[in-house]
């Protein structure tokens, strides 16, 4: 081997995805031990906090069902308040999980392996949180089944031309495909845990869920194919779900909603906010469980780049909306956008612009995008900004509609706030349970990207 070759190899091969000279055995050990040992104190503290927020959520839902949606701040022009804001926010969060797990899988982006498992878990939990809101916003939750096309005594179907029905299908498909995809990925790891289990109960429970996985050649062959197919199924969903959600707005004739830019704009926003949420969670989990070798700085840096790029897409959409408002010469459209930026909700608008467009620009600097504390703070800002984006879209267009005499200002009530906070509680509770009981990083896939997994690995050593 000549000297130049080594230099070239050093310059052009990627640095390893997994650090710390791991072996197959050490990877299994690091990841499985997390769920086998008693959880750390920090886990209990966080779980206590999160589950008390879940109590708030349940209490708020109970009160809402008892009293009706009048307990919210919704008023006559603003019929869609925080409930739809939260719904869109949470559905959006989920998208990063699917993008990471499915799209990056199909493009053979190996760096995804360290984060895909919990990004997918995040998707599922976020969709669960999202589903609460359309569920309760109907007021009489016991007739929520009207939303589904079920034969009924009213002898009518839901309106198949309504995007609200497409939403049911889109989000329902999304949830079930994501769940299947996640579970399929889990099977070999569950089998690993099963084989390491000490007690009979643990063996049985894990045995049940690992579906008799033995790791035989044939099983792997089927498994890989199934995983690929599910990845293929999930990929269009990354684009379709939020596009459909955006049509809830876009098919109406309200200025500020009735716009063809909505589907791509919403998808970019969804990926943007989802990556920010993955960052927030990854940084915490990595710290608590000392996973620095597996979720390396490089992973985080790449995610920051995605955040920066999608942030600019969102920024482009914001400016394009303004451009079209002016270019169309439509006075209602123009008014709506001027009103967004300078009207009664200007404060929300500028929070949105600062958090989503300006702050992510800091990631141009390598120092900032590789600094853990800074990226953590920025990811939180993006989360806030994306929530405000949905708030701005929903509320500003409704509050000042075509009929000035009915204009009103939306102010949230205690119950609006408690439901939002409670939904975060549910999200984190589910997430903490996931970290506690399931391998949060895919053991099998990590092994696949170790240098030892390369068939030529041992030849080089010879």
């Amino acid at each position: 081997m000549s000297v130049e070759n080594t230099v070239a190899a050093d310059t052009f091969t990627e640095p390893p995805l997994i650090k710390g000279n791991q072996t197959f055995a050490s990877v299994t050990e690091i990841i499985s031990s997390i769920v086998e040992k008693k959880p750390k104190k920090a886990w209990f503290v966080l779980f206590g906090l999160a589950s008390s927020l879940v109590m708030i959520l349940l209490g708020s839902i109970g009160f809402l069902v008892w009293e009706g949606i009048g307990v919210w701040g919704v008023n006559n022009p603003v019929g869609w308040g925080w409930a739809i804001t939260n719904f869109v926010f949470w559905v959006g969060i989920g998208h990063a999980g699917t993008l990471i797990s499915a799209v990056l899988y199909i493009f053979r982006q190996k760096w995804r392996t360290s984060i895909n498992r919990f990004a997918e878990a995040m998707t599922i939990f976020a969709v669960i949180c999202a589903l609460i809101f359309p569920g309760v916003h109907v007021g009489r939750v016991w007739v929520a089944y009207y939303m589904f096309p079920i034969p009924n005594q009213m002898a009518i179907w839901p309106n198949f031309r309504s995007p609200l029905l497409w939403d049911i299908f889109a989000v329902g498909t999304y949830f079930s495909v994501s769940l299947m995809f996640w579970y399929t990925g889990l099977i070999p790891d569950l089998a690993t845990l099963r084989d390491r289990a000490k007690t009979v109960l643990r063996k049985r429970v894990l045995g049940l869920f690992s579906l008799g996985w033995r790791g035989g050649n044939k099983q792997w062959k089927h498994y890989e194919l199934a995983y690929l197919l599910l990845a293929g199924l999930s990929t269009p969903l990354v684009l379709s779900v939020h596009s459909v959600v955006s049509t809830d707005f876009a098919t109406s004739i309200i200025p500020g909603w009735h716009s063809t830019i909505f589907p791509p704009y919403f998808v970019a926003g969804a990926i943007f906010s989802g990556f920010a949420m993955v960052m927030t969670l990854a940084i915490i989990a990595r710290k608590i469980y000392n996973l620095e070798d597996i979720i390396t700085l490089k992973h985080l840096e790449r995610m920051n780049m995605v955040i920066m790029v999608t942030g600019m897409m969102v920024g482009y959409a914001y400016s394009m909306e303004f451009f079209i408002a002016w270019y169309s010469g439509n006075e209602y459209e123009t008014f709506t956008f001027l009103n967004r930026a300078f009207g009664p909700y200007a404060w929300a608008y500028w929070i949105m612009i600062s958090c989503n467009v300006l702050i992510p620009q800091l990631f141009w600097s390598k120092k900032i995008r590789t600094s853990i504390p800074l990226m953590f703070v920025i990811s939180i800002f993006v989360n806030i900004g994306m929530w405000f984006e949905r708030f701005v879209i929903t509320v500003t267009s409704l509050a000042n509609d075509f009929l000035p005499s009915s204009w009103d200002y939306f102010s949230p009530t205690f119950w609006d706030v408690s439901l939002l906070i409670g939904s975060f509680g549910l999200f984190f509770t589910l997430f903490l349970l996931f970290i506690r009981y399931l391998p949060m990083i895919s053991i099998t896939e990590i092994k696949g990207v170790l240098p030892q997994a390369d068939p030529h690995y041992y030849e080089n050593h010879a």
Partner: protein
Amino acid sequence: MAQIFPKWTNALPTILLIVVLAGGGAITGFFWYFGSPEYTDVGYQPVQPVDYSHKLHAGELGMDCRYCHTGVETGPIAGVPPTQTCMNCHTLVKTDSKKLERIRDSWATGKPVKWVRVNKIPDYAYFDHSPHIAAGVGCETCHGDVRNMEKITQVEPLSMGWCLDCHRNPAPNLRPASEITTMNYIPPANQATFAAQRIKDKKIKPPITCSGCHR
């Protein structure tokens, strides 16, 4: 390694499948039958403050429905008769009947009798008697054989599906104006041609859009 599960568990998936299918079927069937207005609403017969009989008055005495339910042809509400209507006869007939005590009290004090409402649709749905009567739908179609009812009972589900069943195809339920209050009406052999003619003449077009009933 020893097996984790005993051999009999091999049968579990099959059993589970059967239980899920049968259970799902049973639950669906339960709500299909017991949850439908045909089960929950039909047959409702509240106790009325006065032991009044349609069978006697409308049946045996042969009174016309519209003698008491005066609004039925002219407005949305058929109307339950005021005490005065009863007293048109009962100042002369059965003046000392115990069953009529409440009526006489009401007449003396001027306080109306509190009849209990039987047929009721929710406030968010709009119903109007007069266009139905004008189109030729008989009382019997919606209220059953009242002339033979001792006590009024709800006989139709009054559900939206029920309204729409007729609105989508009213023809079999149309009668000549003279037969509106007839009970046990037997449609003539030429019902189809009669109905087609009537629909054409009266431009009958029941609403099937949401805003027709949910105004």
